[in-house]
């Protein structure tokens, strides 16, 4: 097996072992941190489908994260206040059941990604980066002033939503649930990268003219990837909102979109486990550096800079000694 393969196994073990240790040592906050890392990794894994394989640098993925978050926030808000939503005279009750919320989050953010992609994919390169950013800003400003769901104050959910057969209030159980979702998405991504679709998408990134010349439409390939990618990030948003029991417009902020990109590159672009390692490092840094110095952003910035300038291939590249995943 390749060194990257061993590294991935090590990461998998850590994902099980660290929270396991925390459970035994009664360090519930470590589990919370790990949950946060896993959910952020899931969001970035979603982006990785578009960015890593498809080469679509989206600086607006927080849109889908936020939509997933609000899907959870709105459904749970109506459930906890026993006031059904009214859609053109039809009233729909809210829900506190995660499976239903997840489904809604997937569909809503997937649809949003589809329509945003439809417009944004007319552009490419820098213009694509910027148009996705613009959509992010639209959602951000809209949510800030959307008084029905708290505007900038967001929506608080008092009790975490439920999953059949689990007590999600127990940190380790919620963590396990998130981990399973993450692993499922990673497995899907791994399959995707090798599939005919992945082959075509990957080629569309490198030589779009060639892809057209063999009779495939690069834009449709990208749109499919973008939609899938948005849906996964949306699911992560729903989980994140559940972790915090809170959703607010800051889930739409462009800094968050930037952070997703940071996770991917920090871990290693187009690597299956890149987002996982990147998110884990980010969460740890935030936690430790934040304690060390009020000015911890300087140190974090320097680290990022070092990784970008000298650590091509991210942390995985450094550890496995291969600069590019595509080599």
């Amino acid at each position: 097996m390749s060194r990257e393969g061993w590294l991935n196994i090590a990461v998998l073990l850590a994902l099980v072992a660290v929270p396991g240790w925390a459970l035994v040592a009664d360090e519930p906050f470590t589990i919370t941190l790990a949950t946060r890392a896993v959910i952020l990794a899931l969001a970035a894994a979603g982006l990785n489908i578009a960015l890593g394989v498809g080469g679509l640098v989206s600086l607006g993925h927080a849109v889908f994260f936020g939509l997933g978050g609000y899907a959870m926030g709105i459904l749970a808000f109506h459930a906890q206040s026993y006031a059904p939503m009214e859609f053109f005279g039809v009233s729909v009750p809210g829900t506190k059941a995660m499976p239903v919320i997840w489904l809604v989050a997937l569909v809503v953010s997937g649809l949003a990604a589809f329509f945003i992609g439809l417009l944004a994919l007319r552009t490419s390169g820098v213009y694509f980066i910027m148009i996705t950013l613009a959509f992010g800003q639209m959602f951000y400003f809209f949510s800030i002033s959307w008084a029905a769901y708290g505007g900038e104050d967001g929506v608080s959910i008092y009790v975490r939503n439920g999953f059949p057969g689990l007590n999600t209030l127990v940190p380790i159980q919620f963590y396990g649930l998130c981990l399973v979702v993450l692993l499922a998405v990673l497995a899907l991504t791994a399959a995707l990268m090798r599939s005919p679709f992945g082959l075509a998408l990957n080629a569309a990134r490198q030589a779009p003219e060639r892809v057209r010349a063999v009779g495939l439409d690069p834009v449709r390939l990208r749109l499919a990837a973008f939609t899938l990618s948005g849906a996964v990030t949306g699911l992560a948003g729903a989980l994140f909102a559940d972790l915090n029991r809170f959703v607010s417009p800051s889930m739409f902020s462009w800094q968050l979109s930037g952070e997703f990109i940071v996770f991917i590159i920090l871990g290693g672009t187009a690597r299956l486990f890149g987002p996982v390692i990147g998110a884990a490092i980010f969460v740890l840094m935030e936690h430790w550096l934040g304690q060390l110095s009020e000015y911890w952003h300087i140190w974090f910035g320097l680290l990022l800079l070092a990784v970008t300038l000298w650590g091509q291939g991210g942390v995985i590249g450094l550890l496995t000694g291969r600069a590019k995943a595509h080599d």
Partner: protein
Amino acid sequence: MSPTLIAEQVLNGLQSGIMLFLMAAGLTLIFGVMGLINLAHGSLYMVGAFCAAATAAATGSYALGLVGALAGAAAAGALIELAVIRRLYGRDHLDQVLATFALILIFSEGTRWLFGSFPLYLDVPPALSGPVTLPFGIQYPLYRLTLIGAGLALAAALFWLIGRTRLGIRIRAGENDREMIAALGVNIDALYTLVFALGAALAGLAGALVGTLQSVQVGMGEPVLILAFVTIVIGGIGSIRGALVGALLVGLTGTLGSVFLPEFFKLFMPPSEATQTGSALASMAIYILMAAVLVWKPTGLYGVRT
């Protein structure tokens, strides 16, 4: 709404567009000409404003403050070009986004570390303060008129520099093929440091001029950075003319949107709700404009490259 008020609002829109152009000009220069996405451009804007405020406070002279802004931002620009940016030219946009994102963090917290967390004082110089009366009885602050003049002059100078001078031609040639322009005997490295410093100086100047009207504080660069990006993307990346047209469009859309959209909703909504809805829409207006322009023209109004 009276015609004078409408005229005044149009003027406000134009003026906010020109202020945006001051920022966008440096960005498009670096971004378009050198092919580099510089998210840290907003930080250079902030550096300019802080240098201006600090110099003005120390010397009591606004003019020296402007000089300080130019010098400080240019120096910061040259420094980061030599230390960081230089390694990014050949890289894809992703690396550039990340590295300059990191620079934002370093600059913001670094500035806070140096200057503290409180906003600094920087005010309109007495010679330029107060309003003047324009034809049709429009009262308009002199300082803002000065900004319009400065912006237009700068636009003209940049058109000339990039479009007409040999320096400009070589810079653009370097954007197409760095290795080749060097093989023709042009010291492209030095040229790029120069251009980056120039772009940074423009950002710094914008920070000082616009900062005079605003709050000089950490983080002031990011909102205007995003607006400036919107501007140059609408105009077409790398085009100074595009930046100017884009800036005016964004300025007008932003200003007129915030004035007229609430009025529009008042036609069929209670006033309080109408202003809320109208201004919510107004805050999204420029992004909607940008999306519309790009859907219509995927490389912006005057852009050719991606």
